[in-house]
């Protein structure tokens, strides 16, 4: 009698402690992303602080990128040591990041919506399932492989057959003359970087849009078709408005991915720190600059160049955190309003 109660107490204790272990482990695990985010931002702030202090606002408005002379004197500004002649303004790099991501969005959004529409609304399942797998493949191909393809295959073809035609025939008026001028012979440059980035964010936008289209109830669409609406009218008046904010949210997520993409851009951009005079010329992005410049920055014995790269990383981190919060806000609002809409 007594021993039975004792055993039961042990068993109850074991049960309670198992539940306790699950809860504690789960709570620790779920906190880790916040810890990691805090870790990354702290490292960037601490490491980049000397650069933020010395470079000042000029970092966001200037366009010179000069490591200074490694053989010259070391200068102290506000107590921070840096080589003589070093001067950093990242405006051209930041604008290259925004330009290439903008091209990627302009290319990827209509293609993704169109492909999602063809897959969900037009094609029978036995075709759309294997074709839909292509989206997963595209999402899975390592970015360095896509970058190498862009560099060795796509870039040269575009530079030989497509870009010269555009560059020679676009009207020579303001804005549009950005599409005129010299074409880099390898195809490396802003346009190719934008196209490759577009290809890389298509899976994100297309797969979400496809799932969203499948959640649109069939009755409104069938009703519209019964009233004699064409495919285009059903899509543009019923289907797309039904899931609009979900599509916008997915597009902003894609934008975030394009802003942070590194290796592929480093391969196809031409890695030129400066403004691209036209859409076919070499440029670079923040992420590609950090990747390609860190080795060289190590040569600066004062550590100021490495600190400046931390500041550059902080700029990219702030941009991408803001973009992701925006995407989350849009998606969150849409799932609060409509039926279940969202990337889950």
């Amino acid at each position, binding site marked *: 009698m007594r021993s039975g109660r004792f055993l039961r107490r042990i068993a109850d204790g074991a049960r309670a402690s*198992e539940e306790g272990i699950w*809860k504690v482990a789960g709570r620790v695990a779920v906190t*880790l*992303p916040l810890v990691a985010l805090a870790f990354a931002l702290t490292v960037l702030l601490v490491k980049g602080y000397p650069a933020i202090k010395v470079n000042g606002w000029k970092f966001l408005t200037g366009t010179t990128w000069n490591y200074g002379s490694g053989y010259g004197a070391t200068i102290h500004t506000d107590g921070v040591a840096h080589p003589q002649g070093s001067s950093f303004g990242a405006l051209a790099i930041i604008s290259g990041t925004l330009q290439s991501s903008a091209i990627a969005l302009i290319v990827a959004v209509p293609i993704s919506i*169109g492909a999602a529409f063809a897959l969900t609304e037009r094609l029978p399942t036995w075709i759309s399932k294997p074709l839909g797998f292509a989206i*997963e493949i595209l999402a899975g191909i390592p970015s360095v492989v896509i970058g190498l393809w862009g560099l060795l295959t796509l870039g040269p073809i575009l530079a030989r057959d497509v870009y010269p035609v555009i560059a020679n025939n676009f009207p020579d008026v303001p804005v549009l003359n950005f599409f005129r001028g010299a074409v880099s012979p390898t195809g490396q440059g802003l346009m190719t970087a934008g196209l490759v980035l577009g290809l890389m964010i298509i899976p994100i936008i297309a797969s979400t849009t496809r799932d969203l289209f499948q959640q649109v109830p069939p009755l409104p669409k069938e009703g519209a078709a019964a009233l004699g609406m064409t495919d*285009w009218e059903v899509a543009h008046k019923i289907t797309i408005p039904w899931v609009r904010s979900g599509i916008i949210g997915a597009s902003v997520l894609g934008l975030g991915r394009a802003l942070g993409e590194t290796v592929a851009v480093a391969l196809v951009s031409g890695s030129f720190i400066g403004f691209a005079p036209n859409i076919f010329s070499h440029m670079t992005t923040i992420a590609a600059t950090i990747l390609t410049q860190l080795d060289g920055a190590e040569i600066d014995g004062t550590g100021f160049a490495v600190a400046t*790269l931390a500041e550059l990383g902080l700029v990219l981190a702030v941009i991408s955190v803001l*973009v992701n*919060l925006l995407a989350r806000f849009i998606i969150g609002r849409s799932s609060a309003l409509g039926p279940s809409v969202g990337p889950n």
Partner: protein
Amino acid sequence: MSTTQGLHPNRRRKITGIGFRVGTYLALLLVVGPALWVLLGVVVRAVPHWQWSVLTTPTKGTTGGLENAIVGTLVIMLGVLILAGSIGVLAGIHLSELAKPRRNGKASGGLLRTASDVLSGFPSIVLGYCGYVALVVGLHWGFSLLPALIILSIMVIPYIAKSTESALRQVPDNYREGAAALGMSMGYSLRKVVLKTALPGIVTGLLIALAIASGETAPLIYTANFTNALPGASLIHSQGFAYLTYPVYTFYNQPNVQAHYIAYDAALLLVVIVLLLLVISRIIVARTQRYSESRGR
């Protein structure tokens, strides 16, 4: 558009409709086409010069084979599976099963969830930089496996947590209620009923996370760098760690042809690994769907 201006409105609508239909097929072609083009491009560049000795010879400078990189990538995948897999699955279990919903009916863990979402979109090169500054240099770990694993795991944990959570949410609530009614403890019901049912979904998420981890370059270059040596037993202080994406990124512009061949071979192996992971996850999904359908759900 100006040519259709004079047409009867219905005619114009019809033409727009047909144009839209053609446009959607064209868009689909622009997704499927490049995907196949990239795959075929890799095969065409790699297969004609393929030698099986690549699998058994380590790199020597920019020549040799890829044995060290292949083993390294497999070790990295295993490490990410253990580190990110355990943490990510636990986080997913917490979000779906353990955290109590808030009083206003909203899902739990608002700040933590937001942090996870933001982290999943965080630029990988910035994480790599932080790993370099804080772990490789700051803690004097040197280019080695552990800093690479930590940074890669930080990248994929949000993904694993999210896929685990959504797999668990698809487990019907009456499974949990049934388990509770039979007197099972929370932990027992979680292990034997809920996790078992959600396992295919969790495994699929893990496989995709492994595909992401095996294809990453940017966060590895400044945490693992590269070495000609085969991976050793040490987690830190190993003076470099080999993986497959490094030769693809750095060998393509070397002057010697062997370096190009190694770059293409590495790209082919990466694509094969990723395709295998995708196909396995597809098979798991298809099998569980058939299983649940045959039970008359």
